[in-house]
């Protein structure tokens, strides 16, 4: 990885902003500024010049760009705040611009609104449960936020239970709040996760990799034996299979698949399928 590092160092030393389009898929470091395509067009026919631009009046027909995790807005440019690879997604339909984000790796989870997470109930105080989600504060979960829960009909949740829910409030100023129903009032698989099984922790990047639409790992794992998995975006995975040995095998595979190449993985799966 010497080449991207030297390029990054050079750009930092010169403190020049690069065009986001040219850096897609490459490693970016915190502190770099990225130019968006509209600003590039204002340049002359020289191509991707690395001089900082001044705003000109022509740039009024701009498209909305979303800067995702790892990026911040800095004037009219994007400022990188995490190290990782820069990614871009084209807009599917409607308003243009697309999404830019940094694909970084970390183990510490920061609550984000809308994320589905696995939490452990640590305390029960009055009408709310305190749920540990791996963030800086325990999230609060009201007992009415379960499907079919009313004041008389309380959900059966004890201290130490595992909960699969999503955040409705999650910012740096307030205590995070989670619920186990969606906006229509249905559970949709959320709520208390059943008995037994094993909960273990992995990095956040692995969770996103496993939940990608075309993930082979999950497809191969599903063919081994009957099992149930729950993925939490806070780095926690809960697995359950018929026997303890199968559960442990599954946990080991998921933990190890982060650092395996696809060939090694296929070897292991074929060995498991035989036994």
């Amino acid at each position, binding site marked *: 990885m010497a080449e991207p590092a030297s390029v990054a160092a050079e750009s930092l030393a010169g403190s020049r902003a690069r065009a986001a389009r040219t850096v897609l898929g490459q490693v970016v470091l915190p502190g770099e500024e990225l130019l968006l395509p509209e600003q590039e067009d204002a340049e002359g026919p020289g191509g991707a010049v690395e001089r900082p631009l001044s705003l000109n009046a022509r740039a009024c027909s701009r498209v909305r760009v979303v800067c995702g*995790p790892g990026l*911040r807005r800095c004037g009219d440019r*994007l400022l990188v705040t995490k190290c990782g690879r820069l990614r871009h997604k084209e807009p599917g339909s409607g308003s243009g611009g697309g999404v830019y984000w940094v694909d970084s790796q970390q183990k510490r989870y920061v609550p984000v609104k809308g*994320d589905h997470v696995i939490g452990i109930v640590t305390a029960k105080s009055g009408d709310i449960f305190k749920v540990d989600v791996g963030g800086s504060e325990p999230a609060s979960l009201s007992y009415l936020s379960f499907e079919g829960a009313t004041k008389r009909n309380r959900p059966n949740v004890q201290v130490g239970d595992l909960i*699969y829910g999503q955040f409705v409030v999650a910012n740096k100023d307030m205590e995070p709040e989670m619920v186990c129903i969606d906006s229509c009032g249905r559970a949709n698989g959320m709520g208390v996760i059943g008995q037994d099984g094993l909960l273990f922790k992995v990095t956040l990047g692995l969770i996103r990799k496993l939940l*990608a*639409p075309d993930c082979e790992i999950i497809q191969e794992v599903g063919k081994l034996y009957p099992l*149930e998995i*729950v993925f939490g975006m806070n780095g926690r995975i809960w697995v359950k299979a018929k026997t303890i040995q199968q559960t442990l095998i599954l946990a080991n595979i998921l933990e190890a698949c982060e650092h395996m190449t696809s060939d090694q993985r296929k070897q292991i799966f074929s060995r498991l399928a035989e036994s």
Partner: protein
Amino acid sequence: MAAERKTRLSKNLLRMKFMQRGLDSETKKQLEEEEKKIISEEHWYLDLPELKEKESFIIEEQSFLLCEDLLYGRMSFRGFNPEVEPEGQHWCIFQKLMLQMNAKHKAEEVEDETVELDVSDEEMARRYETLVGTIGKKFARKRDHANYEEDENGDITPIKAKKMFLKPQD
């Protein structure tokens, strides 16, 4: 002497609703304008140069949901859920859940085992049998309630012959 001096009513009095009914539209408009002037003079404003608001076209989002199209996090494979497996209901829910949540991905990793979701004929007949009795009870009068005697199990048993007066034999 009173006719020489025209009584002067105060401004506030003239502004009241009952005084305005007799006025014509012109005087009304004048009064309104004066009102507006007074109100706008009382308003406070900042004596700063006009700051041009820059319309930012970059939106900040901290969530990965927008960036990557992720699957739903709860998955079950090969019909696993031993607690409710005899009924087969929860497994169907998970099947349906995975299909429903991942419909946009067209998830094909879920195995296609067919399960009887419909109620079987026997159960349907059993339910219908008791249903007739239950609904019939609703419309029966008080005297007829004796006809609908409930068994120990709660099933409606067929009625016995109604007891009539038996004429004593000689």
